[in-house]
């Protein structure tokens, strides 16, 4: 198949950047979207041009590294799918495809489609952990946890931090990402001890990074590759309000 691409090209963070058109012949419909970009880069290298930079790692949908806006949708037209798990058969022959980086003030573009998502790291560093003495692994059955609690916590922990929730949000809010970690730890006895401090620190950090307000449009859940539920956002709000009232 033949694909007409419009790709965001930007030399560096300081560069203004612009959309550049490319034509790609002989695209195999069974290629993944990233393989199609690899093909484009082969072509650019052969022409002596600078290849398009984009983030990727595992290419099996679990690492959260890849992620671009494809035709105006985070990770492309499919729901709950990472960019690497999107295949070219989803597109029509001779279709024009717009590829842009995830946009948010908190996610500055480093080069082309590559963005700086360390804002997420700093949110996690501010409280997304439990404070324990390292050493031997503790006896697994010493802390009783019910199976439904484990499952619920694991559902929240499944977040891969790709940033699609921020990219699709009209307010560039990181509420789904932040709440997934808060919810994950608040649901478990190990995390419950520091729940109050954690939620205040993480929400403060989220705000400091310049993410917007959550207005509950629920677009984040629709695009999230891990189908993280928006109810985690409600739990974060609950934990935050509780912490604000009860904090000493």
């Amino acid at each position, binding site marked *: 198949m033949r694909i007409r691409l419009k790709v965001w090209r930007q030399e560096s963070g300081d560069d203004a950047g612009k959309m550049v058109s490319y034509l790609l012949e002989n695209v195999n419909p069974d290629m993944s979207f990233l393989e199609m970009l690899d093909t484009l880069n082969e072509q650019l290298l052969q022409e002596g041009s600078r290849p398009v930079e984009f983030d990727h790692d595992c290419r099996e949908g679990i690492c959260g590294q890849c992620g671009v*806006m494809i035709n105006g*949708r985070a990770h492309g037209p499919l729901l709950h799918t990472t960019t690497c798990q999107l295949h070219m058969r989803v597109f029509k022959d001779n279709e024009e495809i717009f590829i842009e980086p995830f*946009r948010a*003030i908190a996610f500055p573009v480093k080069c082309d489609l590559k963005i700086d998502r360390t804002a997420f790291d700093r949110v996690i560093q501010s409280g997304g952990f439990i404070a324990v003495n390292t050493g031997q692994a503790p006896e697994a059955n010493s802390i009783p946890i019910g199976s439904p609690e484990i499952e619920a916590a694991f559902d929240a922990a499944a977040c891969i931090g790709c940033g699609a929730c921020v990219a699709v949000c009209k307010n560039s*809010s990181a509420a789904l990402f932040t709440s997934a970690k808060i919810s994950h730890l608040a649901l478990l006895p190990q995390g419950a001890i520091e729940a109050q401090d954690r939620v205040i620190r993480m929400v403060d950090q989220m705000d400091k990074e310049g993410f917007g*307000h959550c207005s*509950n449009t629920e677009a984040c859940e629709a695009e999230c590759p891990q189908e993280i539920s928006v109810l*985690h956002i409600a739990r974060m709000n*609950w934990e935050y309000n509780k912490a604000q009232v009860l904090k000493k």
Partner: protein
Amino acid sequence: MGQRKQQTLSRKNWMAFTGLFLCSFLVIHLLGNLQLFLPDEKAHQQFNAYSHLLSGNILIKIISYVLYASIVAHVVYAVIITVTNKRAGGIKYHYDRRGAVSKWYSRNMGLLGTVIFIFLVIHLRDFWYIYKFGQLPLDAQGNKDLYTLVVAVYSELWYVVIYVICMIALCYHLLHGFFSAARTLGVYHPRYAQWIRVFGWAYSIGICAGFAAIPVYVHFLK
């Protein structure tokens, strides 16, 4: 905590508190106005007496000040939140189809809110201002004759049309606002979150259909 630049969650809490208070006001306002559906003579007397009762009650006066403050706070926070959100977005997408995964009214609360605000100005000018500061004739019982004013205003068809359109805007605003407020305040239990969604639908449609029916009824049947 002093150097915090933003407080996204506390701002949303204020939006939720003020919004839900305004929601409760709408219920009382509609229940009172349902008296307009009574037979002509009865509606005339009772509606004027009810208006007189409200304007003379100290408790109602206190609540009315909370109400004005809520409207102002809801608008001010909405503006702050919108401006901050716009800033958080950075460069716009060249091709933007993000709207495909959320409801249009959930993304356009500001626009719907602006329509409601303009409606409020018109509505307050026509009834509240005239009742409080204007010259109204008295009815047989010596109460200010608000009823006749209402009937006169709603006899204009274009006015009825504006009212109905504004009530549709209000309906969509409430449809998202009611459930969103519950989320903001932290209702995370799936069962109750669903109940609130269903209740929110019934509430929004009930309130707005009720309010829209009043000018239509008065225009065509009085």
